């Protein structure tokens, strides 16, 4: 229920709205006019045409990849934290032992088909060995391509 107000209050409120209403409309219109006359604000990408110059954002999460230096060495110690963190079992860390009897990474198997790119594995990794790559053209015609082994060399770390 509305509170009872006197006639003078009603008229005051009415006149106040006559000023504030148009003012708020003008504020809104100024925003849209600013956007209309400024083509630099357009965020749409003309994707297949600007494919050469298109830069993906830093925060974009594409497929998982391993951080490797020029020689193909990585920081993975086969601890399996990423495997535990993965909510849908897209990662299998297969460890082996090197000559010294130390547990090292054998094969890092990544099932891209079931991965949701949540990034929890990257957060869980204690050594910063993996990251989400900015690649976004990941479609393929062969389902076998979606099962990848991320480390190129066996037995490091």
């Amino acid at each position, binding site marked *: 229920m509305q509170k009872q107000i006197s006639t003078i209050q009603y008229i005051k409120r*009415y006149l106040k709205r*006559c000023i504030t209403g148009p003012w708020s*409309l003008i504020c*809104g*219109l100024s*925003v*849209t*006019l600013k*956007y*209309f006359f400024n*083509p630099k*604000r*357009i*965020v*749409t990408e*003309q994707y297949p045409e600007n494919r050469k110059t298109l830069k993906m954002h830093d925060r974009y999460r594409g497929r998982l990849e391993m951080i490797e230096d020029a020689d193909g060495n990585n920081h993975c110690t086969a601890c399996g934290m990423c495997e535990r963190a993965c909510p849908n079992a897209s990662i299998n860390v297969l460890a082996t032992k090197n000559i010294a009897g130390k547990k090292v990474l054998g094969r890092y198997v990544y099932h891209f088909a079931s991965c949701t790119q949540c990034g929890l594995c990257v957060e869980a990794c204690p050594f910063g060995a993996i990251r989400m790559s900015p690649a976004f053209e990941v479609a393929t015609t062969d389902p076998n391509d979606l099962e990848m082994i991320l480390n190129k060399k066996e037995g490091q770390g």
Partner: protein
Amino acid sequence: MFVPSVTHPIGDFVRDWVPRLAEYLPASIQSEDLNSVVAFLINAVICIIAVCVVNIGSAPILIYMERKVCAHVQCRLGPMRLGWHGTLQTIADVIKMLFKEVYAPSGADKLMFYLAPLIVLIAPFIVCALIPFDKNLVVADVSMGIPLIIAVNGFGVLGILLGGWSSNNKYSLLGALRSGAQMISYEISFTMILLFVVMISGSTNLMSITMGQEGTIFDWWIFKIPVLGFIAFILFFISSTAEMNRAPFDIAEAEQELTGGYHTEYNGTPFAMFYLAEYIALITNSALATTCFLGGFFPPCIGIDAVDNVLKMVPGVVWFFAKIYFMVWCYMMVRWTFVRPRVDQLMDFEWKFLLPVNLVLLVAGAAFIAIGL
């Protein structure tokens, strides 16, 4: 024998040429009456074709423009693929719409269902015939132009109500009833503003309303009456937006609440006709605003002879269409900026704000005429 004449240069040209061509006919069927009747019929056909071309031709342009304006307001690009910057997109859409199967929902009143889109189209076509596009380019130069426009605009409500009622759908009916109430309410302030224009220009003929604004930009009705003209223009803008059922007053459609309002059940060509009527109404309302406030087909002279002579070299039709499209752009910016009021707020706005302001404006205009002129 009385034959109504069409007065424009093309009409004179036709009247000149028909007797010359008639000389080739056998002498037994040659007569003055036949010549004048044939000339009139040819002129009438030319007029009909002209109105249809202006209306139906501008609809795809307006749809394209609407999509582009909407996109740029929202930081998008709009249609870009088909043709240069998506120019052919609306044509493709129109073709797709025309080739769709037309069917009515079960339980619909078939006759009314198919009659409604036709009735909606009547009003904008008749209004377009009354608009003077240039000194000699007017199809029907009637002396009671403004009352005829007001009378004809009622067809829009009728068509929408019929469409909503005959669809046998509760959302359509709700939308139609809401929009009926809205359009009837806003017709009052629409009429009042036209009355204000008639009052200050002293004529109901659209041609003489336009001719009264000859001269510089400050002779247009929007600037000639200080402050009052501009207020009248804003009020006309608001009430014509409501008349056209465009956002922010699109409670007839209100796609977020009513799944499309009165044309929920329409598809294919009948739907295209509703859509067409909406955009032709946009053109005719912009043309009316241009004629009544923005100086019609006169160039925006600023009082400096060197500039004015250059501006006057451009034909009046070009100025008229430039002004129309400027108005259309204004309507579109308003549509994509403002939010839709609730039904009760809409009615409040009309009866508690717009109507009193209109009455005050009429009194002030009368006082201005009594004192100033």
